[in-house]
C-alpha cells in the first residue's frame, strides 16, 4: 500500500492545505523501534481517528507528535511549520494540546487547579464558563482533590482543561476507555460540539462504533505504520476489511 498516496488523498470537504501533516514518523522506546513510518494528514476542522489493535503504535504516534518521546525522526508539520526539532513545551506552544490515555489528573491539585493548570498558548480558548457548560459536573466539584473524581469526571476534566489553552488541534488518546455508555455518549456529544466550534481533533480509539459516530476519516495503524484510510461514509462498505484490521 502506498502510504504517501494515502496521506494526500483529496478526500475531505475542508479545502485548503492540511493543518497537520505527519510524514514517515518513526519512534523508539529505548532500543525497540515502535513506529516504522507513520503517514497521515488532518485538515482544518476535521475529526480523524487512529484505529488499530493494542500495541499498533497509536498512542506512540501522539506522543511522538507532541515530542514527548526523546528518540524519533521523520516530519511533523503543523500550520506549515516543522515541529521535529522542538521539545514538547514548544510543540504545545504552537497550539497543539494532548490529553493522555491515563488522563494525567494531578492528585496533589484540586479540580480547579487541574483545570487552570495548562497555560494559555493562544487567544481564543474556551472560557471556564463554557467548559462548565460542556461538563456541568466539574463546577460542583471544584475544590475536590483531582483524583477523587469518578473516571468519567476525570476524563471530562482532562479534556476540559486543554480547551482553555487556545490550542486548535487536540490529540485525544482513548477518551472513552473504561467509561460507562452514558458517559461515552456525553463525550461523543462534546467532540461533535468542539468540531462545530472549529477545533481539529485526532482521536485514538479502540471503540470503532464510537469512532464512526464522531469522525470524518479513519486511519488504520498496524505495526507502526498507517496501512489504510477509510472515509467515514465508506465505513459500512469496508466493515469486513476493518474487522480484519482490528481483529474483532
Amino acid at each position, binding site marked *: 500500500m502506498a502510504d504517501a498516496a494515502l496521506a494526500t488523498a483529496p478526500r475531505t470537504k475542508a479545502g485548503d492545505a492540511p493543518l497537520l501533516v505527519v510524514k514517515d514518523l518513526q519512534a523508539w522506546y529505548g532500543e525497540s523501534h515502535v513506529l516504522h513510518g507513520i503517514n497521515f494528514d488532518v485538515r482544518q476542522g476535521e475529526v480523524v481517528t487512529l484505529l488499530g489493535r493494542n500495541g499498533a503504535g497509536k498512542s506512540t504516534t501522539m506522543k511522538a507528535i507532541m515530542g514527548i518521546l526523546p528518540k524519533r525522526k521523520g516530519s511533523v508539520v503543523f500550520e506549515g511549520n516543522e515541529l521535529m526539532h522542538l521539545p514538547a*513545551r514548544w510543540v*504545545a506552544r504552537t497550539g497543539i494540546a494532548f490529553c493522555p490515555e491515563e488522563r494525567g489528573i*494531578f492528585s496533589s491539585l484540586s479540580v480547579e487547579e487541574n483545570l*487552570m*493548570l495548562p*497555560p494559555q*498558548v493562544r487567544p481564543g480558548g474556551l472560557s471556564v464558563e463554557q467548559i462548565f457548560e460542556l461538563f456541568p459536573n466539574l463546577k460542583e466539584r471544584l475544590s475536590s482533590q483531582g483524583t477523587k473524581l469518578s473516571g468519567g469526571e476525570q476524563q471530562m476534566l482532562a479534556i476540559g482543561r486543554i480547551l482553555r489553552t487556545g490550542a486548535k488541534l487536540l490529540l485525544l488518546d482513548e477518551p472513552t476507555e473504561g467509561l460507562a455508555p452514558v458517559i461515552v455518549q456525553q463525550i461523543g456529544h462534546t467532540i461533535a460540539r468542539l468540531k462545530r466550534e472549529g477545533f481539529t481533533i485526532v482521536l485514538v480509539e479502540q471503540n470503532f462504533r464510537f469512532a464512526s459516530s464522531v469522525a470524518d476519516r479513519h486511519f488504520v495503524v498496524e505495526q507502526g505504520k498507517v496501512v489504510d484510510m477509510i472515509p467515514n461514509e465508506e465505513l459500512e462498505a469496508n466493515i469486513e476489511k476493518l474487522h480484519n484490521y482490528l481483529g474483532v
Partner: protein
Amino acid sequence: MFELLGIPPQALFGQLLLGLINGAFYAMLSLGLAIIFGLLNIINFTHGAQYMMGAFVAWMLLNYLGINYWWALLLVPIIVGAFGIVIERLLISRLYHLDHLYGLLLTFGLALIIQGLFRNYYGISGLPYSIPPQLAGGQNLGFMFLPNYRGWVVAASLVVCIGTWFVIEKTRLGAYLRAATENPTLVGAFGINVPRMITLTYGFGVGLAAFAGVLAAPIYSVNPNMGADLIIVVFAVVVIGGMGSILGAIVTGFGLGLVEGLTRVFYPEGSAVVIFVIMAIVLLIKPAGLFGRTA
C-alpha cells in the same frame, strides 16, 4: 517560684526555647530538602554545606565589604542560591536520567569539597559574628529570660516556612510545582518550561538553606563544619516528616526541636539520640513518614 516535676521553670523554658531555635533550623533546612527532593528526585547532601556557606558569606560581606546583617539576610540567599543554580545547570542536571544514588554521591562529594575549601582558608576554630545592635538584649518574661535575637530567629523562620508553604500549596506557581513533581512530562507537554522550573526550585531550596545560615551566624559560631553537624539530624527530620511533604517538614522540624529540648531537661543523656530513636520507630510503624503520601 513553682517547680514542675522537680524542674525549675527557668531550666524547663530555657531548654524549650533552645529546642524551638534548633527546631526553626531543622524546619527551614528540611523544608528546602523536601522541595528539592520532590521536584528533582535528588537527595541534596550539599544542603548542609550550603547552609554553612550562608553563614560564611554573611561573615565575608560584613568583614570584607562592611555590609550589615540586614542586607546579608537579603543578599546571601540570592548569592548562594545563584551558586546552587550554577551547580544544578553544570552538574546535577546531567544526572536526572540516572538512579537517585548518583545524585546523592555527587552532592555528597560537593559538600566535602566545599567544606574542605572553607576549612583550608578559615580553619575550624570558628569566626565570630555579632548580633545586630537592633536585636541585642532581651525580655524578662517573668518565668524566663528571652534574648531578642532568639525570638527573632523563631519568628523569622516561622514567617519564611509559612510563606513557602503558602506559595506551594495555595498559588498558581505552587500548582505548577506540585504538578511537575507528580508528572513532569505532562506538565512539559502543556507548554510549561519544566527544566527552568527545576533549576529555580533548586536555587530556591539552596537560598533557603543560606537564609538559615545567616540567621545562625550570630548564634552558633561560623565554622566550616556547622552544616555537616546539623544535616544528619535534618535528614532524620525529613525521614520522620515524610519525604517530599512540605507541611510535614515544617511541623516535624519544630516538633522535633521541642522534643529534643524536653529530652535535655528530663533525660539529658538521651538528647543526642532521641531524634534517631523516633526516626527508627516511625520507619517501623509508618515507613512513608508522619505526613508522607503513600503512592
